[in-house]
């Protein structure tokens, strides 16, 4: 590969969009050409700078609620009526008319919350099963790397969300990689960490329930599970390490992510 060819592929190389063969060819050229290497380093530094410094504002407080209530108002008749039929008990308590649509939202939330308890236990069983399958078999990770810049893009390219894959080696929990798993009838991210000889899986997926939920401990079949919800995501940490160590892991993750 010459300089012209390498330059034309520099951005695709930086963005990991090249096939393996071309990527290796660019890599070989960069190793031998100081000018192209400098150009690549400039682009790479710019990319890192944007990712580190650019604003990524969270949606302002109240926007989600405003949208939900506007949706309820505007989506109007057909959908809310069927929702009311589904949970007539709740809708009867509310005045008819403008509130009908709001009732749909309320009953829908209530239904989700009612369902929460058994669902939580089911999910705990599923994450334990996922963890056990991977540690007992040889399929610990789909992408093996302690580099969050490898794990995160890999996972987000396979999923419709982007979990924070931070390395926690400083806290004693080095990142070993990531894996796709299937929990609660959807593909989820499993971040794989090590703690001494143990493996800790952190399952992450976006969830429909609103609001955060504090840390909750469950255990079953010799595995400890810690579960919390934050910022629209559900987190399930599972391992055979003792609960205090698992809690230390969760705290380190929550502080670093």
């Amino acid at each position, binding site marked *: 590969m010459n300089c012209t060819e390498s330059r034309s592929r520099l951005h695709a190389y930086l963005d990991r969009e090249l*096939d393996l063969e071309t990527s290796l060819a660019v890599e070989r050229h960069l190793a031998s050409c100081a000018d192209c290497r400098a150009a690549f380093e400039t682009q790479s*530094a710019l990319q890192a700078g944007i990712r580190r*410094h*650019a604003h990524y504002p969270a949606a302002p407080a109240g926007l989600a609620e405003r949208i939900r209530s506007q949706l309820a108002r505007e989506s109007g008749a057909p959908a809310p009526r069927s929702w009311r039929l589904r949970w007539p008990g709740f809708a009867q308590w509310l005045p008819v008319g403008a509130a009908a649509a709001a009732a749909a939202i309320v009953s829908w939330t209530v239904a989700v919350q009612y369902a929460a308890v058994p669902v939580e236990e089911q999910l705990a069983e599923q994450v334990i099963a996922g963890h056990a399958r991977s540690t007992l078999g040889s399929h610990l990770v789909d992408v093996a790397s302690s580099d969050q810049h490898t794990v995160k893009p890999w996972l987000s390219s396979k999923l*419709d969300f982007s979990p924070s894959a931070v390395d926690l080696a400083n806290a004693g929990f080095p990142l070993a990689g990531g894996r796709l798993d299937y929990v609660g009838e959807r593909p989820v991210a499993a971040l794989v960490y090590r703690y001494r000889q143990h493996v800790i899986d952190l399952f992450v997926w976006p969830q429909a329930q609103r609001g955060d939920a504090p840390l909750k401990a469950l255990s079953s079949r010799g595995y400890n599970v810690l579960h919390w919800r934050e910022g629209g995501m559900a987190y399930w940490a599972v391992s055979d390490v003792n609960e205090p160590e698992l809690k230390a892991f969760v705290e380190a993750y929550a502080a670093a992510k």
Partner: protein
Amino acid sequence: MAQARVMAVMYPIQGKGLEPKSRARRFEEIFAAHLDAAYAFARWLTRDERNAEDVVQEACLRAFKSLDGFHGGNGRAWLLAIVRNTYYTWLKKRRVEALSVSFDEDTMDGGELAALEAPGSAVDALLQQQDARRLVNAALEQLPEEFREVIVLRELEDLSYKEIAAIAGIPLGTVMSRLARGRKLLLQHLRHAQRES
């Protein structure tokens, strides 16, 4: 040519006429998970917080109405595409001229041109300084929007070229050339701002 990453199918494929409950829950799943991304993208498109809220609100209503047209795939990319379309409609309706400051390459002097080829360490040093945050955000704000949107989708949303092409409705090759040009403009702007300070 770039190899597009394979996207996993995320939601079970469902036909038209979803039941209201599954429809609402399905929308809520995408909405709850990606509202922040939608807002951040709208904020970078409009460069204004209030307008970003208006655009996101309108986009979410559109998204809810067109949920039947979403047959699985990447929920975030789907929502961001709607945010983008809503933004351009909103822009037209308000007849607001995009206030993008264009960079004129012809006026660059030799020093600036040389800066483009500056070693990574020089850019790194620039981005290490105390006001790096301000410099980077100012440079992004001034980027003409066709470049700003691809840079934001690539760097802040970490989307693949294929996903960006789908969101912006442009060919893959255009994604690549706009990224390259956008990055070049950013470097010019950063250098320029540094020389002035």
